[in-house]
């Protein structure tokens, strides 16, 4: 009952005109970045994070900027489907699975059916996940209140281990990326001893540390843009799509045919989204696979089956809410986008973690309320403005790219007001591009830069407590199982390798 009262109260806060306007703006920006091939929610939130300082200045609280960024996250999940269906190119990696059946539907002259199905499935996925989030989050946060330093460090270890065990990327490169991010986070003054560390070539710019935004905007604003510019995107043709209120209503009435895919995507997506390193992309691919497996007509998947659009679209929205759960309750982000959101919370002066629910209810509940409201706004804006987004998709990349470069550079300068960070950001971006060509995953490094400053003090304080004895991570009732699971996950790829060799 308390939860419902808090939620209703939060919704009223989120419905304040300023917050409502931000949610609307965020959804529109999100739909745009999600729809543009090469841009995703993480690019949107990373590039626009410096601009949220203004929002905080105006509103005087951290809730409004967070509502804005969370709405971008939501909108992007809806937007990805637009280009997947009409161009055949996923607007973001989270919408890859949507192309499998969305594109064939569009080529068969049923783009309207695919777009409406995607929008409604996204809405249902998001709403189901919001309900699950509202139910689970306070309970998980209250359990997490009992966590001490060893437990929190064990959870961090688990987050990184999931990347290694389930990430699917090259393992040594993933480990390198995680450790590199963690080392970058140590540059500057050690908060425990006060000693300067890793001040490279005695350049004073390093003494304030390598800021998260510098790496995030470098990787997602510069590196990914270079990657997208280089990727061939000229051989695409947009499917002519005519949308009218009549066709939208017709397709809304036909939507129940996609109930099974929506149900699978909504629940599976949420739980996959909770896992660190999993998130919306594997969530949507998995939902597509399961929907095909349980379908009575699996042979129609890949040829234009509505369940094949509904399952991944509901899953990517559900997963984006799922990824918020560990971020809000444990202070551990489940995806690069939530890592940026977490960093934003720190910048706005909040301490992410279980105490948020007890100490900052004025932040938490309006935010949760805004999830529901943003979801409704996203559905309405998506259906009403599809023709506008289709028009915007025709914007040449040679206009969008320089705008994003300028936004990245000016945004970084505005955040810290020194050119050293801007140079560092561009150098990170160029380095990120060169490493990406060789399959070095960069998302773990971005996550590690956020988690590093939290993980290191927890480890050191735990070891101080145990007088340097590492068994503290194995002998405590909550930390022990989490550490063991983390170690198993780290060793999993090695075990798989040995197993496959033994079978041969």
């Amino acid at each position, binding site marked *: 009952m308390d939860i419902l009262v808090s939620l209703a109260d939060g919704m009223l806060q989120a419905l304040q005109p300023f917050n409502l306007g931000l949610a609307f703006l965020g959804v529109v920006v999100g739909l745009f970045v999600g729809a543009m091939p090469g841009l995703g929610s993480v690019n949107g939130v990373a590039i626009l994070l410096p601009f949220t300082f203004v929002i905080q200045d105006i509103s005087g609280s951290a809730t409004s900027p967070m509502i804005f960024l969370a709405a971008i996250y939501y909108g992007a999940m809806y937007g990805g489907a637009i280009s997947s269906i009409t161009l055949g190119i996923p607007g973001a990696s989270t919408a890859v699975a949507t192309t499998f059946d969305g594109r064939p539907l569009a080529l068969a002259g049923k783009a309207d059916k695919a777009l409406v199905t995607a929008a409604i499935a996204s809405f249902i996925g998001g709403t189901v996940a919001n309900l699950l989030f509202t139910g689970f989050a306070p309970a998980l946060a209250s359990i997490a209140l009992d966590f001490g330093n060893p437990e929190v460090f064990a959870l961090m270890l688990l987050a990184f281990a999931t990347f290694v065990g389930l990430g699917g990327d090259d393992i040594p490169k993933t480990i*390198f990326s995680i450790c590199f991010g963690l080392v970058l986070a140590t540059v500057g003054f050690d908060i425990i001893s006060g000693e300067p560390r*890793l001040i490279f070539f005695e350049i004073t710019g390093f003494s304030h540390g390598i800021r998260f935004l510098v790496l995030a905007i470098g990787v997602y604003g510069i590196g990914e843009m*270079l990657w997208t510019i280089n990727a061939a995107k000229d051989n695409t043709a947009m499917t002519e799509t005519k949308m009218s209120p009549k066709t939208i209503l017709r397709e809304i009435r036909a939507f129940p045919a996609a109930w099974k895919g929506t149900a699978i995507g909504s629940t599976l997506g949420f739980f996959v989204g909770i896992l660190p390193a999993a998130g919306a992309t594997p969530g949507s691919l998995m939902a597509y696979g399961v929907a095909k497996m349980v379908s009575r007509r699996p042979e129609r998947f890949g040829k234009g089956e509505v369940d094949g659009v509904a399952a991944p679209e509901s899953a990517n929205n559900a997963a984006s809410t799922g990824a918020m759960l560990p971020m809000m309750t444990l202070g551990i982000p489940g995806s690069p986008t939530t890592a940026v959101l977490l960093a934003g919370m720190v910048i706005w002066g909040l301490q992410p973690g279980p105490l948020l629910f007890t100490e900052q209810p004025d932040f938490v509940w309006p935010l949760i309320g805004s999830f529901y409201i943003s979801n409704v706004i996203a559905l309405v804006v998506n259906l009403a403005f599809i023709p506008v987004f289709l028009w915007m998709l025709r914007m040449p990349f040679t206009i969008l790219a320089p705008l994003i470069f300028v936004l990245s550079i000016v945004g970084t300068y505005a955040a810290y007001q020194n050119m050293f960070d801007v140079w560092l950001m561009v150098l990170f971006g160029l380095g990120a591009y060169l490493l990406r060509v060789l399959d070095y995953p960069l998302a773990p490094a971005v996550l590690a830069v956020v988690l590093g400053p939290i993980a290191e003090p927890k480890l050191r304080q735990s070891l101080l407590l145990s007088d340097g004895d590492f068994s503290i991570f194995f002998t405590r009732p909550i930390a022990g199982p989490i550490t063991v699971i983390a170690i198993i996950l780290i060793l999993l790829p090695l075990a798989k390798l040995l197993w496959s060799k033994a079978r041969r």
Partner: protein
Amino acid sequence: MRRAEIVTAVLLGLLSIYLMWKSGEGPSWDPDSVRFANIGMIEGEGPGSGFWPFWLSLIMLISCLWTGFNWWRGKTPPSQSDQPYLSQHAKRMLLRVGGSLIVFLALIHVIGVYGAMVVFFVYYLRFLGHHSIPRTVAIAVAVPVFSFFFFDVAMRIVLPKGYLEPLFIPLYDIFL
């Protein structure tokens, strides 16, 4: 691609060794500090300041050796690839786009953010994008003007102006 894989692994391995070396440095204000004294447990203080970065850098080094081993076995896609690390197209793109970003930043020190923005947009839109002159001029003027009113006027974040600062003084008088 194959050669780039091992060259990168070696370079990143060297970077890891440098980071290990650097992590062991004591504070400059203590001339008696011994290198690597801070990477283990310190009596009554727990792990030293170099503990976390040193051991992480060691793991980085091990992962580079692992990448080298995978390269030797030819197990990763880049180590099996005969393709060049960067295609001609990619090299050209990196030079034209990446190079223009470096020039953009260098120009900020000389003619400020707004001047550099105009030059960057003209170069990118007209020469890389082959857009028409009216469209190029419209964007190259509109974005800096909007940015000035957004940052300098509305947000009171003064962006660098370089040697063009005197040109902005009348604008400051009017709007600030």
